[in-house]
């Protein structure tokens, strides 16, 4: 059974069909990329999985759980973490605090314990901190640990957002354009990190990305979308060679 299974998903905004009868499945341990022109419905598909949007039709199953039974905040409890296309960090908090919010689904203490800061709260905090430090080491964020997000450059924010998702120890990581706005070197770093996330941490990655270099470098399978529907699916090479994909990107007759 696949880790994530989406069948016949459909979502309309008024007359616009954002996602049209879309089906795909992501296997445990693979890197699965979604590509497509602007407005193809890639981010919408992500927001459907995160339960930010209510689909018109379709089934969404994650590891045997029906995602449609859950609210948006319960999705994280299953072990699905995500990043956002335009970076949604907590700007008036430090990098460390941002990463610690990633640990929210692992908290065990109650309101009363926290008000009195019982010994258990301290032990839990130290445990969360240790987990976050692993992520900081992994992503080389040490120089920024106590910096406010509001003063950090774009590239670092992008990495912090990845770190926050990793801090929640997810089983499935949704990356919405991890390389957008990054320099060539930063994109290269991102590629190695995604590789390591899969190989070392055993986390399944589902990503939306425009940078075909990154996509073909890290992903096992690629799904090409256009106008909310599936255009092609297969290995990066297969998808890049698909006549329908070339037509969607470059226009009719270009091939």
């Amino acid at each position, binding site marked *: 059974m696949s880790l994530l299974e989406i069948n016949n998903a459909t979502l309309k905004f008024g007359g616009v069909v954002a996602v049209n009868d879309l089906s795909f499945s992501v296997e445990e341990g693979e890197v699965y990329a979604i590509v497509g022109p602007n407005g193809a419905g890639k981010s919408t598909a992500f927001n459907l999985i995160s339960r930010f949007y209510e689909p018109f039709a379709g089934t969404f199953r994650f590891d045997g759980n029906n995602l449609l039974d859950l609210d948006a905040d319960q999705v994280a409890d299953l072990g699905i973490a995500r990043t956002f296309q335009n970076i949604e960090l907590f700007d008036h908090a430090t990098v460390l605090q941002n990463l610690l*919010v990633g*640990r*929210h689904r692992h908290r065990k203490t109650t309101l009363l314990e926290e008000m009195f800061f019982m010994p258990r709260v*301290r032990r839990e905090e*130290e445990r969360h901190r240790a987990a976050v430090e692993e992520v900081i080491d992994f992503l080389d964020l040490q120089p920024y640990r106590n910096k406010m997000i*509001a003063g950090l450059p774009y590239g670092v924010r992008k990495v912090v957002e990845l770190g926050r998702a990793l801090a929640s120890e997810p089983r499935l990581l949704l990356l919405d354009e991890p390389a957008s706005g990054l320099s060539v070197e930063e994109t290269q770093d991102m590629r190695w990190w995604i590789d390591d996330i899969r190989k070392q941490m055993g986390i399944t990655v589902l990503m939306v990305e425009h940078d075909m270099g990154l996509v073909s470098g890290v992903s096992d399978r690629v799904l090409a979308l256009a106008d909310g529907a599936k255009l092609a699916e297969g290995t990066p090479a297969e998808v890049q060679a698909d006549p329908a994909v070339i037509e969607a990107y470059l226009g009719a007759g270009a091939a």
Partner: protein
Amino acid sequence: MRIHFKTTYNDDIRLFPDRWTFMVYAALLVLAFALPYLIGEFYLGEVTNVLIWAIAGLGLMLLTGQTGQASLGHAAFLAIGCYANTILIEQGVPFIVAFPLAGIITGLVGVLIAIPVLRLHGIYLAIATIALSVLADDIIVLTEPWSGGVSGKFPEMITIFGLEIERWSMPSRFYYLVLVVTIICTLFYRNLLRSPLGRAFAAVRDSEVSATAMGVHIARTKGKAFGLSCMITGWAGALMGYYAGTFNNETFSLVISITLLMMIVIGGLGTIHGAFFGAVVVAFLPQGLSILKDGVFGSGVAIPGLETGVFGVILILFILFEPMGIYGRWLKIRIWFELFPFARKDMFRRQKSYLKTERLR
């Protein structure tokens, strides 16, 4: 400049980052406890007033500064705390039980009100909470058999295990009571900040979308923030009742709500220090102004609206020139001295924040 050599994670978790900070706050605490022996009864009363305002400020700060939800209705919660405490004591509940209970009742009422109100955002939330302030007045008049209505109520003398406490005849005992409540509220506040709930509050304030994606339940978190905020505010209200000696439907008016909100903005949003600095301004400004006015125009002249006008000007100046409030200014001055002579002019200039994803629903 002090450099912290951190060796354990606990260095970041404990209340005071280093021994020096601990000494400073310990000295402050000793000073606070010695204060009745150092200053006269009038000034002790003023300091008590500052502390009561600071407790109320901490309450609102938790909601507005930490969780990002503006409220112009907190005078209503001051009123609930005050009336709950007084009525409970009239029913024969001892103060030591009635006082905490008054805060808890206020908190529960706050949660009930939060459920519909916190669906609103920003300015709409502020307008909805103004309604609370206005309603509180009417409700107090309507529930006259319990609340005393327009003629008001007088809180009974406090007795804790036989020890009598009264604001006018025993100002130092009342001061100690207020001081202890202040310390407890400050510790609660500080403890929440360093635990998961405090971070969830900040997450809700800065980005509801990604807070949700990280598993934070937005409505529940806001509800908790509102409840805790109202609880602390309720305690402040109960103490305000004792401090005033008498209260009726007009004591906790909309003006008090607005003053509270201004207070935390002037003090510095999102910081514990801000609540205290703001309280000093709010409690001493009227006195300072009247002394100044008497000096300039003579004591016979009354200038209507002077206080409100000056408050407004101060608020506007702070929003324009020091959005981080008095505490922010204090930090800047301190860092200037710590780094001397290496402080630069633009050290606190923040980059504009990047494009935000529009609200998803």
